[in-house]
């Protein structure tokens, strides 16, 4: 049997449990958890195996013809694995978290079924070998996420779901149009470093620019580029594990990853520079970064603040790619992983606060550090990482972004980074400070988890601490082999093989 079937197995390892879970009865908790964790564990192993293979330089590729000239291509390159590993690892953790989080609430089977579908779609996105395949999984992701957004079923969450759909479906339609157009101009090429559009720029410069804009706008909806972002803060009505995995990792990253693919593997950096597309993309990213931060500053609701922070932080990825130089690319791509780790930590913490003490607002965090020190510690590490305090993961990203900006002689981007970090500090430090140093006189009235041995349910606390530790390790041990930075350097080396460069 061909080793490429591994890709199918990886997809199936979450899809099959997901579909089975749909048909489980509500009461069969044990079986459902076993299916979930079994699938997640299996996927982790398979992805790990694939990781080694890709590093060796093995080629994994599967194709099927959908229409004449339209192929479904699954392929694994180092960039795919960056995203796939991240989502697989976090899926595993989030599943444990979600089991703890949803204890005692209804509609488990539905929730976990769609949850697994989402992960399948995300991994599908990671392993998409061309734009069309990407679009297919991208839209499936939209479809599979919506039920999770509206899971609570309140009027507010239904409204959020509507908004989410309105944005993402419109984005998908735009992408479809762009991809058809591109396929008409250039055929449907596979993703490959340096892109496959070379030579077309003489003939269709305007069209290529327009298509680029459409693609970026289409992916920008999920990546929450301003002004296409406003679904994201609203979607925070979803349960915490959903916000955590989907809005910190899967959905927004899918958008950012799409932009990465378009810039790196469809257009190619040379063409992007030649057509002058880097500057507008950079500008969009910078505007988003600053705008998101400013909005986060004025949000009192913790999850809302985190959501706006996501808006801002995801654009670092876009920014890094838009810089179109090796160092910037390292910064952007490594932030794909780092931001995911840090943001999921923060969302887990927000979930813990809400679940344990019914804290939803920053202003209510006073003194929470005494009651839930470990969660607060994780929150602090996540927040400091987001600000870019060394040696946490966010610093590594910002460092490379800064160097990347200078490498491409975009000094203003460095200024934007500084301003945005300042804003990050302005909205992330107050909750941290309030949590540790604020004084709460009255006892916590509605404690849910009093009977637990730890400060909260172990299934909530364990994943939180684990992701926090991974986020810290990603920064502190960035120099080790197989660290995100190391892997990203490998990707960038392959991408920039001819031009070289690096520190």
């Amino acid at each position, binding site marked *: 049997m061909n080793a490429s079937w591994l890709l199918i197995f990886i997809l199936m390892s979450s899809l099959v449990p997901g579909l089975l879970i749909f048909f489980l009865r509500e009461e069969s908790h044990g079986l459902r958890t076993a299916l979930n964790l079994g699938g997640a564990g299996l996927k982790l192993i398979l992805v790990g195996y694939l990781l080694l293979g890709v590093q060796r330089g093995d080629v994994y590729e599967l194709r099927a013809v959908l229409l004449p000239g339209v192929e479904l291509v699954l392929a694994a390159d180092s960039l795919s694995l960056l995203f796939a590993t991240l989502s697989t690892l976090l899926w595993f953790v989030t599943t444990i978290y979600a089991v703890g989080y949803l204890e005692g609430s209804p509609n488990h089977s539905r929730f976990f079924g769609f949850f697994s579908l989402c992960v399948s779609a995300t991994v599908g996105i990671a392993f998409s070998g061309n734009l069309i395949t990407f679009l*297919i999984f991208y839209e*499936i992701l939209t479809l599979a996420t919506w039920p999770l957004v509206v899971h609570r*079923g309140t009027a507010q969450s239904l409204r959020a779901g509507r908004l989410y759909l309105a944005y993402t479906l419109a984005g998908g339609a735009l992408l479809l*149009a762009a991809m058809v157009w591109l396929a008409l101009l250039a055929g449907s090429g596979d993703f490959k470093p340096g892109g496959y559009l070379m030579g077309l720029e003489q003939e269709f410069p305007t069209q290529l620019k327009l298509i680029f804009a459409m693609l970026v706008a289409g992916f920008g909806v999920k990546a929450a580029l301003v002004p296409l972002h406003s679904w994201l803060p609203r979607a925070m009505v979803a349960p915490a594990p959903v916000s955590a995995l989907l809005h910190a990792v899967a959905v927004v990253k899918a958008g950012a990853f799409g932009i990465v693919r378009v810039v790196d593997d469809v257009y190619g950096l040379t063409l992007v520079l030649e057509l002058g597309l880097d500057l507008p993309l950079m500008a969009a990213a910078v505007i988003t970064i600053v705008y998101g931060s400013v909005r986060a500053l004025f949000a009192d609701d913790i999850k809302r603040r985190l959501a706006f922070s996501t808006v801002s932080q995801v654009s670092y990825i876009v920014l890094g790619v838009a810089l179109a130089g090796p160092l910037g690319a390292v910064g952007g791509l490594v932030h794909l992983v780092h931001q995911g780790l840090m943001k999921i930590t923060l969302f887990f913490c927000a979930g813990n606060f809400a679940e344990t003490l019914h804290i939803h607002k920053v202003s209510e965090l006073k003194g929470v550090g005494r009651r839930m020190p470990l969660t607060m510690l994780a929150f602090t590490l996540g927040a400091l990482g987001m600000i870019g305090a060394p040696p946490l993961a966010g610093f590594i990203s910002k460092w490379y972004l800064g160097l990347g900006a200078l490498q491409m002689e975009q000094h203003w981007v460095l200024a934007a980074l500084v301003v945005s970090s300042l804003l990050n500090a302005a909205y992330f430090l107050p909750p941290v400070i309030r949590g540790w140093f604020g004084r709460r006189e009255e006892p916590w009235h509605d404690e849910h988890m009093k009977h637990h041995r730890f400060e909260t349910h172990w299934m909530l606390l364990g994943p939180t601490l684990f992701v926090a530790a991974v986020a810290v390790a990603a920064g502190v041990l960035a120099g080790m082999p197989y660290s995100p930075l190391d892997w990203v350097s490998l990707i960038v080396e392959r991408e920039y093989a001819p031009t070289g460069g690096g520190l």
Partner: protein
Amino acid sequence: MFATGLDWAAWAVAVPLVGALLAGLLPRLGPVLGLVFGLLTALAVAGAVMGVWHEGPVRAGLGGWDVPLGIALSLDGLAALMLAMTAVVGLAVSIYALGYLRSSQTRGKFWALWLWLWASMNALFLSGDVFNIYVTLELVGLAAVALTALSGGAAALGAAMRYLLVSLLGSLAYLMGVALLYGGYGVLDLAALGAAMEPDKVSRLAAVLMTVGLLMKTALFPLHVWLPPAHGSAPAPVSAVLSALVVKASFYLILRLWLDVFPVLTVPGFELFMGALGAGALLWGSLLALRAARLKQVVAYSTVAQLGYLFLVFPLMAVTPGAWQAVVFFALAHACAKATVFLAAGSLQKAAGHDRLAQLGAVMRKEPVTVFAFGIAGASLVGLPLTGGFIAKWLLVDVALQGHAWGWASLVLAGGLLAGGYVFRVLGHAFGRGSVNPDHRPVPAVMVWSTLVLALVSVALGFAGAASLELLALHGGRT
């Protein structure tokens, strides 16, 4: 192979016809007969499709009698695909109906009428001359009206009556066109007519009468008003068949006529006019689907909207001659998806005892598989990937952009978004915290699973694009 594709095609007409007679005579055996003859018909259709696949388009007189007085059958890729579509949807609907009509008074009549309708549609797809088409059209119309009236309530009868009048009016207009054509050219055969066609006044008049008559039966906006009540008040399997297949039959004829007979008459104004009607249908149907308060109304108006896509074939063919294949594939995808949606709606209605959206939430939560099937089919209607709808939308956008028809491409995409609006509006109720419905009647498993299987066919269509296009390329009309 013991028989040619055409033999199989003839069996595809004869088998359900015999089944209809037997079911009419032995109403108590209806379900068994329906299932057996349904399966046999599907088998015959499979033979016919394989025949076309291997042998290419064929035509022959039935029983050795050729045109003009005999009945000629003509089988090409397009017809085969329509037969296949009817067979797949028909089979699923038949199985579904086993459960749906289990306790119904009308099940005896249903099977006879349904097999009759199936036979008529197959005959219609296979007809090679304009007058035979008239006869089969009338047969389809009458059977469809009878099925609409089946539930016997005031609403159903009113809707059926309206449908009957519309149908007869359309047929007569069509027949007048046939008369004029015969007067002009002295032949009735589609291919012969197409070969002889001159852009003169009589031909144009005939084209107008035939087209508008068929438009009426296709329920194109603004002649759609008979459709929502008819589809909304009929039993679910009937709605599914009407919405998925019967309107497609008349559209198939319009397409046939303009592909094989009237192409010389096409002018930009006409293409634009038809495209405008399609756009109107798309927008108007979507708007009303977005506001409808009852589930089956939503689905019926969705049909009105999606039929609009079909008529984009005219402006699209003007820019890209191969556009009709995209539209036919769309019709195929829509048939599967819409039938699924109607079947799912029927299950929900059965479970809840009503189909008022606002009070349906609790029941939807108790029928996850049905809602899941609804979701998949809905995704196909919206044009989300890995469904037939996605491929169809891709093809439509592709042909539009090939011809630089930006407007039509945007319309196609906008239509998908509007579909998203009403599909997810329905699905949203499954997640809402709506009132708990105390009397939830469990739905027979056969209904649930047949719906799901048909939904999966929509998914399968997502991978059948290439094969379908290949089949359509075997087009024998103008040889």
